[in-house]
């Protein structure tokens, strides 16, 4: 290796699949010149489990638990996307209270996902402490979700036609306390992290993505909004009861790594707003649709639904051939598109920048591999 490295100008460095900063089993093949990267080639597929193929061999309800395991950090968005698709296929309407509970839990889950990202990202940048603070906050949200859904990570909570468990006063109280606490903590994060001069120097002007590049590579979620395009499925193609809430879509100014960080932090604030409004406005009534068929056997047809997950647009395309099992399910995962831009923006950066850029993409590798 060394001998060849001395003769040739460039050499190859394997970043991963076991590396502290690839967040799972992602391998990036780097062609380097000194510490500068001349070519970055992400290599995926180490975590392939064949979820889409599994769908073809399971009935509709049986596939539900799989949806908590594609993107394990924002599992409820996947629950929601899939449930919405099947509901559309068999023509079920979810009662209003059920939709509210879905929104509350999905937004809580979005916050846990972003909190984990904030901690892990700062760990990538070499700050050890923030992850423990964000995990402390995340723990509170996980406890709430645990109380309601019974699980902490791979949720399988939504059902076709609504949700199985109603929220009670304890949960509502806990949510309000959590909102208070997190708002208070954001001020601390701001003081300790966002105003830290080393942090700003590490993230400002690193990993630029222009708006044209965003559209060319099909970026969604905070990656897209970081570059200043206010596209959020919750606003632009509203689903569930999101139109009833007053919230903003935070966008970045330049499209660098710092902007993507700020977008995610502000998104958490907006999620808190949504939860607060939902808790105030939640109507009384049933949480499940009345006539849910015992055996789900939709008529032949196809349907596409999209929800906004913590990483971007999650699309669920279900084709039914009139059987109790889906004919085909295609999952459109945001991380795949988001990661595809890495070779373009990683060129001519240092290894340290690559780690910062890779972290800012917020990839969940099992989601890409499925």
């Amino acid at each position, binding site marked *: *290796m060394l001998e060849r490295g001395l003769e040739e100008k460039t050499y190859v460095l394997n970043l991963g699949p076991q590396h502290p*900063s690839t967040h799972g089993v992602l391998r990036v093949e780097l062609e380097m010149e000194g510490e500068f990267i001349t070519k970055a080639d992400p290599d995926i597929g180490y975590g392939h489990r064949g979820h889409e193929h599994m769908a073809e061999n399971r009935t509709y309800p049986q596939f539900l638990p799989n949806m908590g395991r594609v993107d394990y950090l924002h599992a409820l968005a996947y629950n929601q996307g899939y449930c919405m698709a099947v509901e559309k296929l068999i023509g079920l309407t979810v009662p209003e209270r059920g939709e509210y509970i879905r929104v509350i839990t999905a937004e809580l889950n979005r916050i846990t996902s972003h909190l984990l990202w904030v901690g892990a990202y700062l760990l990538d940048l*070499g700050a050890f402490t923030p992850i423990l603070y964000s995990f402390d906050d995340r723990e509170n949200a996980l406890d709430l979700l645990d109380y309601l859904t019974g699980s902490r990570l791979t949720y399988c909570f939504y059902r076709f036609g609504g949700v199985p468990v109603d929220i009670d006063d304890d949960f509502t109280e806990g949510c309000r306390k959590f909102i208070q606490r997190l708002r208070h903590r954001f001020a601390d994060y701001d003081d300790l992290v966002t105003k830290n001069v080393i942090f700003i120097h590490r993230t400002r002007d690193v990993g630029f993505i222009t708006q044209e590049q965003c559209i060319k590579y099909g970026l969604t979620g905070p990656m897209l909004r970081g570059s200043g395009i206010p596209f959020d499925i919750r606003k632009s193609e509203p689903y569930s009861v999101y139109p009833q809430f007053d919230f903003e879509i935070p966008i970045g100014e330049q499209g660098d790594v710092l902007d993507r960080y700020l977008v995610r932090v502000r998104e958490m604030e907006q999620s808190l707003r949504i939860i607060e409004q939902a808790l105030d406005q939640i109507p009384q009534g049933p949480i499940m649709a009345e006539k849910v068929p015992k055996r789900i056997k939709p008529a032949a047809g196809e349907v596409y639904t999209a929800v906004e997950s913590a990483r971007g647009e999650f699309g669920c395309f279900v084709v039914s051939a009139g059987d109790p099992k889906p004919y085909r399910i295609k999952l459109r995962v945001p991380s795949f598109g988001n990661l595809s831009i890495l070779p373009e923006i990683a060129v001519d950066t240092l290894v*340290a920048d690559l780690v910062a850029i890779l972290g800012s993409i917020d990839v969940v590798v099992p989601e890409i591999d499925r």
Partner: protein
Amino acid sequence: MAQPAEVSLFGMIVGLFGVIGLVTVNALFLIWMERKVSAHMQLRPGPMEVGWHGSIQTIADALKLIGKELITPKDADRWVYLLAPIVVFLPVLLSFLVIPFSQDMVIRDMNVGVLLILAFAALTVLSILMAGWASNNKYSVFGAIRSVAQNVAYEIPLLITLMSIIIMVGSLSLVDVVNAQSRYWFILIQPLAFILYITCATAETNRAPFDLPEAESELVAGFHTEYTGMRFALFFLAEYTNMFIVAAIATVFFLGGWRGPFLPGFAWFFIKVYAIIFLIMWFRWTFPRVRFDQLINFAWKILIPLAFANLIITAFIMKLL
């Protein structure tokens, strides 16, 4: 200052065992302290199981490390690879020769004391380079290259900063430096020098935010990626002993060494040293890591000009007085 007229064999043996004992106990204590400090900064209790508040956890860890297999990679440069952990330790031990723990507790008060410590401190780079190169691992080489560039860059402001104190004292002997602070500590009249020194010392010991040679999220473990068992432990031990040495120099040069009321001299010395070590630990658990170009720019464009300015101003004032 009382120079020992002749060095007796007995004195040498006592000194040697004293130093080795101090190095070991100090490193064990510092590792425990680091874990406790980091834990309390991170809302967790840290080690609690082995001994009172986990106080002998590091001994258990050391025993575990001794029991681990010593792996030498197939493609490693065998001799250099084996020598590196030993080479890292020798200069560290020798530096203790001249550190004055109290009025009388100094193994050998040489008139080139500062020079000796800095010369030995510079040798640490050699062992890191040896370890990184011989491991034949790309991440290790990265760590080694970074380490060399970093140490060269930061030793210059370090030396210049200390020089401004030496101008004031007029001697390179550490005992003389402490004696010159009988009326006031030098941190009061040289605050900029103290800040510069602590910054450089953090970089010298490869501590965060300047821990680029072993940047975990970038280089896995940097130069000691391939080392296992006691060889790895020696690097670890050397890192913590180095921290002690730079903190000891800071104590001697800026905080009046062993001077202080009521308590005996060595107690004051250790209190001050550990206070500075606590400060360095505090940095590590608070700041993100800087990028390499920023690190080098910071040294050459900010620290070195400032250190020179400080030196020139000090020299000018000393001339006037």
